[in-house]
């Protein structure tokens, strides 16, 4: 049904809006005629200069192998939602989209906007993946809505060994109590303990969901009933509030970029980020390069298992693509070792291989950063492979196709803000947030 919807005729509910797209039937013709000659359009929000260069290499190699042209178009973490909405509603879609979080793919798939991805996963080779790597992309109908292009361990605790030594600490924090003690010991006049985000943005929501799980709580029950109001969330809110005094004043407006920069520039003693820290420290603040290391983020107690936030960067193909076969070919080609390794090396430790075979590949290991920080990179790879996100809170949870909207609504970051910044009543903030999430689930 997804395929016929856009041809302009025989639509059901769409017909209600036919007046709006009065000429969509007309537009369908030239579009179909154009399709064969136009290059594939590839969108991604991950486009640091080195990554963009790696993509160009893959595009060239694909052209050489198949004669098919691909153009890369950058989007952004903030911009992709309206851009894709415009694209989907008009039918002028990109042919392949990479690096969006798994829950975005689930949302679009649930609305019939994406092509099932099973063929591509088979073409890449099911056995090459880490076991269970594609579980997060399994949709309600049993098909795969996308596959991963890279893992990331986004809430690693980064620490400075030199500052720990100065403060007389020899154990890297494993529990919240230890973390609080450590940041307290390391915080001095100009140096803050941690760059936790307290802003009204997706980072705050995503990171705080990690804290909920690190306290043994959850946002949903495995059958997707809202279960935000639990002991874990309450403890997480309390701890997150306590941590505020060890964060820079501007943390109330922090998102990923600010948080990362605070640690890399040496303004905070600990950091919370992916392996991107490694390359940024080596490029921008080399004196720190020999003092940094990372562990999984501390939990309330050691009885609770670590919970690594992995956004499961995805690859998917819009159902309206006029060139699905070529797009699938290209999607599979993205995992061709030579180009894929180059792509991973563009941000070593940040985008981690999704394929077991690549991790073991000596070419992948042959990178200065990956070699220098081997224990860290290995730890991140292992944590990320066993990681979760709101669309996939635990292995038992059903996949949640509304996760993207819950993050986008900022309901969780608003709850954090109310409790931490405004000192609002916890019961009220929790019940309001639960209500909003229930509304989103019902919509």
């Amino acid at each position, binding site marked *: 049904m997804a395929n016929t*919807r856009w041809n302009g005729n025989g639509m059901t*509910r*769409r017909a*209600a*809006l036919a*007046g*709006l*797209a009065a000429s969509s039937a007309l537009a369908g013709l030239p579009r179909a005629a154009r399709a064969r000659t136009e290059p594939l359009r590839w969108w991604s929000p991950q486009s640091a200069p080195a990554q963009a260069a790696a993509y160009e290499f893959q595009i060239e190699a694909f052209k050489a192998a198949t004669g098919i042209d691909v153009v890369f178009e950058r989007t952004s973490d903030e911009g992709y*939602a*309206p851009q*894709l*909405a415009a694209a*989907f*509603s008009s039918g002028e879609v990109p042919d392949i989209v990479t690096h969006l979080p798994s829950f975005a793919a689930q*949302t*679009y798939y649930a*609305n*019939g*906007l994406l092509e099932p991805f099973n063929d591509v996963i088979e073409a890449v080779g099911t056995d090459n993946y880490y076991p269970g790597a594609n579980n997060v992309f399994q949709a309600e109908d049993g098909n795969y809505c996308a596959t991963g292009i890279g893992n990331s361990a986004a809430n690693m605790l980064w620490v400075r060994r030199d500052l720990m030594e100065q403060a007389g600490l020899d154990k890297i924090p494993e529990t919240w109590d230890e973390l609080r003690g450590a940041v307290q010991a390391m915080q001095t006049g100009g140096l803050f303990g941690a760059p936790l985000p*307290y*802003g*009204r*943005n997706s980072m705050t929501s995503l990171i705080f969901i990690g804290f909920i799980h690190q306290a043994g709580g959850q946002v949903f029950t495995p059958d997707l009933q809202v279960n935000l109001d639990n002991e874990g969330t309450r403890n997480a809110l309390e701890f997150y509030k306590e941590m505020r005094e060890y964060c*820079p*004043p*501007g*943390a*109330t*407006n922090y998102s990923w970029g600010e948080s990362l920069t*605070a640690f890399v*520039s040496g*303004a905070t003693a600990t950091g919370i980020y992916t392996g991107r820290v490694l390359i940024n420290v080596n490029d921008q603040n080399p004196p720190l390069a020999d003092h940094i290391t990372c562990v999984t983020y501390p939990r309330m107690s050691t009885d609770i298992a670590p919970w690594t936030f992995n956004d499961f960067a995805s690859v998917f193909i819009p159902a309206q693509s006029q060139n699905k076969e070529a797009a699938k070919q290209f999607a599979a080609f993205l995992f061709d070792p030579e180009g894929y390794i180059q792509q991973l090396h563009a941000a070593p430790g940040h985008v981690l291989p999704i394929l077991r075979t690549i991790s073991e590949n000596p070419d992948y290991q042959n990178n200065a950063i990956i070699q220098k920080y081997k224990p860290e990179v290995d730890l991140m790879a292992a944590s990320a492979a066993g990681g979760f996100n709101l669309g996939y809170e635990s292995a038992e949870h059903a996949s949640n196709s509304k996760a993207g*909207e819950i993050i*986008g*609504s*900022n309901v969780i970051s*608003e709850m954090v*803000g*109310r409790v931490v*910044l*405004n000192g609002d009543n916890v019961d009220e903030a929790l019940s309001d947030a639960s209500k909003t999430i229930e509304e*989103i689930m019902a*919509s």
Partner: protein
Amino acid sequence: MQVSQTVLERRYAALGLVLIAPTVLVFCAVIVYPLVSAIYLSLFSIFTPTLEGDWVGLDNYRTLLAKEEFWTSLGNNLIWTVGTLTLQIIMGVGMALVLHQNIWFRSLARSLILFPYFISTVVAVLVWKWLFNDLYGILNHLMIVAGLIEFPLDYLGSMPNAMISVILVGAWKFFPFVVIAVLARLQTIPDALYEAARIDGAGPIARFFDVTLPQLRDVLVVIIMLRAIWDFKEFDLIYLLTGGGPITSTQTLPLLVYKEAFALNQMGMAAAYAVVMMLIMLVFMIIYIRRTRQEEET
């Protein structure tokens, strides 16, 4: 003679219609059509990426009027608009009076004052975020050196600082528009009026209130209306500066529309918000036009 004139008049009228045709065409295509769509969409419950959905009639409107978020956003919207507009007018008129005087390097001074209006909102926001930066920002540093504050201020992440910062940056960015308009008008006030006032023994302040202000009245009426509408609708500046935070303290209606449309994927609801927003502006505009007309008549 009589007959040929009416033929000529009719031909003129036809020419007039031909000349206005492109304007009307553009208006229909780019404004009337989207406007009608917006009203139409607001009657559905629509998932943005597919634009599919069910007819819900006026349900969206009922929901939004019952929503607390709508009223707080409207409140923020009014605080922001009134705050930034007042500052823009005061700073704009004041600066125009100064720049109207014969100060040193006057045209350089004028260019520097107009500069915030020329630059992109994107650039303005980036520069201010860097000035406001909690760790490396010069503003905190200067204020600490000057002894005004002891610890770095959190300009964008706490209240009321965030609202004040947004209002100030908005005023900084848009007051040159007022300067331009007022300065232009000042240049056309005949010197004779000032001479007459001076002969009557009026001091500089009396001259401002008795001569300058009445002369500026017309232009101020227009500017206030234009700027009020633009400020009420402002999206880029607030969205890029605070994103509506902390919590929802600086979330204005355009940001709420954006959130409904693209974060929550509820295009119908977003359209309903937009229609309500338009009605609010329309009411204010009509009241404002009535009031100024009445004052003109009295």
